[in-house]
């Protein structure tokens, strides 16, 4: 008896193996890599093992003893994996600017000299006489770190190990993160304000009118994001179509500032994301029986009241999932704010892109990603609670 269902279950499981494999390789594994990159910090202990072993006994006062310095010389002489050494240098330079040229110069000098000659680092480059370079080296020895996660929210550890805020003016990740959510929220509201009536209209009409309305939403979705954003650039600029037309009609004297500010970003992003709002609402409305509104009218409800008490509650599931889609996609936006936004409209993705592509600081890029993911998951959780709440659905 019990064997047949087990086999069936196995068969069913086999059917979803491709899906599980896909999720594991393209979702879980990259996610795990990102989380790992943000906390693992083993490059210094791996590439400079002697230094790492010697420097832990140093109390951090003044300069480290000679055996630490000689261990570093020996490590640099022995380091034969150029790419691994490069990672170490990048890690250290990210903590203290200047490590890059310092270590390159030191490595070259150490390799030119013979083994017998003891190298005096302080003579080689006077930066080795500054304790801050050695302290950064010591801080990089433990294999796990929270410095990236802290830096992602503008915090750091001070000399005593306590968590403190970054100096004002040194970093603005928190502000940019907040701005990212603010812009995404504005865009979601704007999409809802336009998308809801639009979807209702599309669901109410039939035949070629419905096709035309849906095509008007779908065609932009099939167009490249870059093309659409560039088109907005042409429309919104000072001598662009909108400003020219308004001036020709005599409505304004000088061009409205529509581009390189928040207005431009919200307009362009709302247009790009509108399909994600319209389509879920539309599909929900299609399943609403058409005679419900008539029934409401027959029971004495005016059009407004019927909308408020019947149609709106019924379209809420679509509105909620549309809002969630728009919001989630919006927080990752990068190209649109870069092209039509001003300096104050850059979102967190552009900061992540700088660390990932510009400086190859994948630890910090990963940490920013982790923070973004966490905040998004919290919002998703709130959404889950809200959408289950019976009052909201009017049930």
């Amino acid at each position, binding site marked *: 008896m019990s064997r047949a269902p087990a086999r069936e279950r196995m068969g069913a499981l086999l059917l979803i193996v491709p899906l599980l494999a896909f999720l594991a390789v393209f979702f879980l594994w990259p996610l795990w890599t990102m989380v790992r990159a943000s906390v693992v910090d083993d490059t210094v202990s791996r590439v400079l093992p002697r230094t790492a072993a010697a420097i832990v006994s140093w109390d951090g006062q003044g300069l480290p003893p000679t055996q630490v310095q000689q261990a570093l010389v020996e490590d640099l002489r022995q380091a034969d994996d150029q790419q691994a050494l490069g990672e170490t240098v990048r890690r250290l330079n990210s903590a203290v600017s*200047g490590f890059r*040229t310092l270590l390159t110069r030191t490595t070259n000098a150490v390799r030119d000299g013979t083994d017998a000659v003891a190298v005096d680092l302080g003579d080689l480059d006077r930066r080795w006489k500054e304790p801050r370079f050695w302290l950064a080296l010591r801080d990089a020895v433990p294999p796990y770190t929270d410095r990236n996660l802290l830096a992602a929210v503008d915090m750091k550890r001070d000399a005593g190990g306590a968590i403190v805020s970054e100096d004002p003016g*040194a970093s603005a990740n928190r502000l940019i993160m907040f701005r990212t959510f603010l812009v995404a929220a504005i865009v979601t509201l704007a999409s809802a304000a336009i998308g809801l009536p639009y979807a209702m209209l599309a669901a109410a009409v039939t035949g070629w009118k419905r096709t035309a309305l849906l095509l008007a939403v779908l065609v932009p979705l099939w167009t490249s994001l870059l093309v659409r954003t560039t088109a907005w650039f042409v429309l919104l600029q000072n001598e662009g179509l909108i400003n020219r037309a308004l001036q020709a009609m005599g409505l304004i004297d000088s061009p409205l500032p529509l581009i390189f500010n928040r207005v431009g970003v919200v307009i362009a992003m709302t247009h790009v994301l509108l399909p994600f709002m319209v389509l879920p609402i539309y599909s929900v409305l299609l399943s609403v029986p058409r005679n419900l509104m008539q029934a409401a009218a027959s029971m004495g409800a005016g059009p407004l009241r019927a909308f408020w008490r019947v149609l709106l509650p019924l379209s809420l599931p679509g509105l909620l999932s549309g809002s969630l889609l728009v919001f989630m996609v919006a927080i990752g936006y990068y190209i649109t704010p870069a092209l039509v936004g*001003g300096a104050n409209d850059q979102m967190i993705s552009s900061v992540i892109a700088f660390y990932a592509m510009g400086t190859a600081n994948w630890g910090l890029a990963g940490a920013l990603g982790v923070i973004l993911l966490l905040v998004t998951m919290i919002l998703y959780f709130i959404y889950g609670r809200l959408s289950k709440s019976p009052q909201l659905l009017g049930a």
Partner: protein
Amino acid sequence: MNTAKMLSVAGCVSALLIGCSVQAVQARDLTVVSWGGNYQDAQRKIYFEPFSKKAGKPVLEESWDGGIGVLAAKVKAGTPNWDVVQVEAEELALGCADGFYEKIDWNKLGGKDKFLPTAVDDCGVGAIVWSTALSYDANRLKEAPKSWADFWDVNKFPGKRSLRRGPKYALEFALMADGVPPADVYKVLATPEGVDRAFKKLDQLKPHIVWWESGAQPLQLLASGEVVMTSAYNGRISGINKTEGKNFKVVWPGSLYAIDSWVILKDSPNKDQAMDFIAFASQPENQVKLPEYIAYGLPNKEAAAKVPADLQKDLPTAPENLSNAVALDADFWIDNIEELNKRFNAWLAQ
């Protein structure tokens, strides 16, 4: 579908296309990556297409906007999907130190002494000498701006300006606008007070700046009249003047020049052909054609000497253009880009 075929399909799927994509990589043609826009159009005409014809094989091309992280990701993936890349001075230094590039075979290029000394590196061969300079549309501005101080003077030249987004090519210009002589720019910038001074100067202009990111944007901003002045890559200015009949001008004093180099990514499957391509693009008879399309200086000495005088005057390497220009300090930027970029972002966000 027979069993064998099904199995092979299943194998591919279960290996999640890794096996299949390896085959695709082996068959890939030489891929050359440059900086897009009218600069890459010129390169296509004088380098990519003739080389492809000579080799009898297609040359694939892509464009990018720089960043050592992009190259690091490609090299660490094992087999990079790019072969030849044109990189900026910092990417050359960083990538060479980190082992991202193949060593250059200077014998194939006819020896190091055929090139400007600054264009010679173990990992790279100079491709162009280029400049970032103050540029404006002479048809729109009655009076010509002459310096970065004029760029900062919003009373004399009302309207928006644009600069490249990031500390590089902004802090240097700010210091010059504040009266630092071109020769001392990096000396001042190397001190914390110098950095503060540059940011303070940028503060004055902040409400009037539109920031650009890719090299084609400043041309668009000037052409549409969105800004009255901008920093721009000098070659693109002369390029758009030729192709679209614009009257954009470059202000040479206070410009920042640098060398871009060709590199070959480590473990490129087309290594030999990549080296042949770089040799082809470095031959004087090929390189000398570049200034006809776009005004960049040539690192091959023989090619540089052959450039006709009327084109020579627009190049960053012309003596009169060099006289008050600053050479980009790649060492300063590889040390400080991360910290200054963080501060720059914080400054922008305020």
